[in-house]
């Protein structure tokens, strides 16, 4: 599961969502200003979108706060407090102002500012997604190179089936089957959650990443338990994302392998593997960085489902839990955050492209 408009083939890159990457921006002030304005407009649009969705919801925000038995007076008071008596455009301006000041509202469920809640659950998701992308990129890049080098031969066909299978799995289902098989039957991995209940709360901070924190604290038992819990959801998430990386790597590699310099290298007597890894692969690294960055953002989507299955206390579970009880300020902040992460990753892959590719300087 990757971003919806993620490029399908190497040639599609030019039609990428925000159109930033391929333009090979040079460090000219005009261009940078243009880009900043374009990002600002997109962010403003994001706010408008989340505002509209938030206002569409069937749950009465006032009832959610005051409860069913509140008197009409109390109701009206809260109604005015929330600013719902003002015109819509004014409500929107207030919303934008709040967001700019870093005020994303208060969660009905926890009673804490939404942003604090999200910051508290984010490390769990980052740990999961980072582990997953390491698996996904390692698997996807290797398979893609092997597939391209063996185009239309059996390894290519096999790799296509393996990677498409990962792409076609309903990820929540794979999670459950994995739990039944590797946890309940074989007992190779830990069950739900980030760590066994026994060790819960034993290690806190400073990074929030349990693997690192437990190492820093010298708690090897906790580290082992956390690793046993992490390995299954991260592998499934990584496998699901590998399909896209494989396809793109294969496509990029085919581009390179069809060029004259590869034939020259082979004629010169360079070995097959030296040609592939030493010549062709070196030339696609920059493009791969872009793809991996985009995939990393796409993992958030898979994380929503996989965190629900594994009771992983991260961003995805926070989002779905709040959806169930209709806590819209929490939900909309999550949606807004995903949008911002996506735009940032797009921009980041753009910058990386410029830094690593000498031709764009």
């Amino acid at each position, binding site marked *: 599961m990757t971003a919806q408009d993620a490029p399908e083939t190497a040639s599609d890159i030019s039609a990428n969502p925000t159109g930033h990457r391929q333009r090979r921006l040079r460090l000219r002030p005009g261009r940078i200003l243009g880009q900043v304005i374009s990002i600002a407009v997109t962010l403003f649009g994001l706010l408008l979108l989340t505002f509209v969705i938030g206002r569409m919801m069937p749950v009465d925000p006032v009832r959610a706060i005051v409860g069913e038995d509140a008197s009409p007076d109390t109701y009206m008071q809260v109604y005015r407090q929330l600013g719902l008596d003002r015109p819509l455009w004014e409500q929107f301006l207030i919303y934008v102002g709040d967001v700019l000041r870093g005020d994303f509202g208060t969660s009905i469920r926890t009673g804490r500012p939404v942003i604090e809640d999200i910051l508290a659950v984010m490390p769990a998701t980052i740990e999961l997604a980072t582990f997953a992308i390491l698996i996904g990129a390692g698997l996807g890049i290797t398979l893609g190179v092997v597939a391209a080098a063996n185009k239309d031969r059996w390894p290519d066909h096999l790799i296509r089936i393996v990677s498409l299978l990962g792409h076609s799995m*309903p990820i929540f289902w794979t999670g459950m089957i994995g739990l039944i098989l590797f946890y309940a039957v074989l007992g190779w991995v830990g069950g739900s959650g980030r760590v066994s209940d026994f060790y819960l709360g034993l290690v806190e901070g400073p990074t929030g990443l349990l693997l690192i924190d437990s190492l820093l604290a010298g708690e090897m038992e906790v580290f082992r338990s956390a690793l046993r819990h992490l390995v299954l959801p991260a592998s499934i998430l990584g496998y699901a994302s590998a399909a896209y990386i494989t396809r793109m790597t294969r496509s990029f590699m085919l581009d390179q392998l069809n060029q004259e310099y590869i034939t020259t290298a082979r004629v010169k007597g360079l070995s097959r593997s030296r040609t592939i890894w030493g010549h062709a692969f070196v030339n696609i690294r920059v493009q791969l960085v872009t793809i991996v960055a985009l995939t990393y953002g796409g993992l958030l989507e898979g994380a929503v489902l996989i965190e629900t299955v594994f009771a992983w206390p991260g961003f995805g579970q926070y989002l779905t839990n709040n959806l169930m009880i209709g806590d819209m300020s929490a939900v909309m902040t999550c949606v807004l955050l995903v949008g911002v992460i996506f735009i940032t990753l797009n921009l980041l892959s753009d910058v990386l492209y410029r830094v690593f590719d000498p031709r764009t300087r």
Partner: protein
Amino acid sequence: MTALPRSTGLPLLRPLGNILRALLRNPPSAFGLTIIGLLLLIALFAPLLATHDPHAVDLDNTLRPPGGGHLFGTDELGRDIYSRLVFGTRITLRIIALVTVIVGPIGLIIGTASGYVGGLFDRIMMRITDIFLSFPALILSLAFVAALGPSLNNAIIAIALTSWPPIARLARAETLTFRATDYVAAARLQGASTLRIIVRSIMPMCLPSVVIRLTLNMATVILTAAGLGFLGLGAQPPLPEWGAMIATGRRYMIDSWWLVTFPGLAILLVSLAFNLVGDGLRDALDPRQMTGRAMP
């Protein structure tokens, strides 16, 4: 695009026929097409193929393992899982068909209008698609369903709302190439209105690629719908939607593995079929890969 510009149905049919032949020659895509064909047949003849009423509760026969009159076993209410899966094909097809019927025209209209009219209108429309594209499909669908209320139809609307931007972008890109052609200039000189040129001269030319993009999108639609069903935001029980079946089966999965296994396999098979066809389509349409040789 080497097809002659003609504003009849021909430009759509001829390339699609060629593509279909190319797909059937490629074993993985042919397999995918077969599965999709089977899916259609199963949905059509569901009442004949089902062995039980998919909604019939039988509390004496709950959580029976596969075999003994129940091919895939029974669920927590004694309903026959095989029959529910068979009827579930109709829901899956309904989701795909409705999303396609909504998304295709919206994407086509916005894309062609934006590409042909250009200017400020184009910039605004493309900025809007950018905003939609800055979310993963599932996250935005989640937000829309949360706002509309959970139900199968709302899930379909939410998925449609999130899947039109890539189609619009594609139609716009195609339009930009056709806008400069002689036959469009000729139509304009004859005094054809903007609306007429878009509808009669440009839209038919964009159709083949839009249809293909819609096909590529179907596996994502199926997985998103199943994901929404699993989270309880899509089809509601007792509808035999596969994702929702997995969600209810989850409570019993350690002891009764068949409750989640079979619906998941059904989703996997259908989404794999669409991905195989999509993969074949991309290869058939990517000229660089056709000339590609194996490593010397």
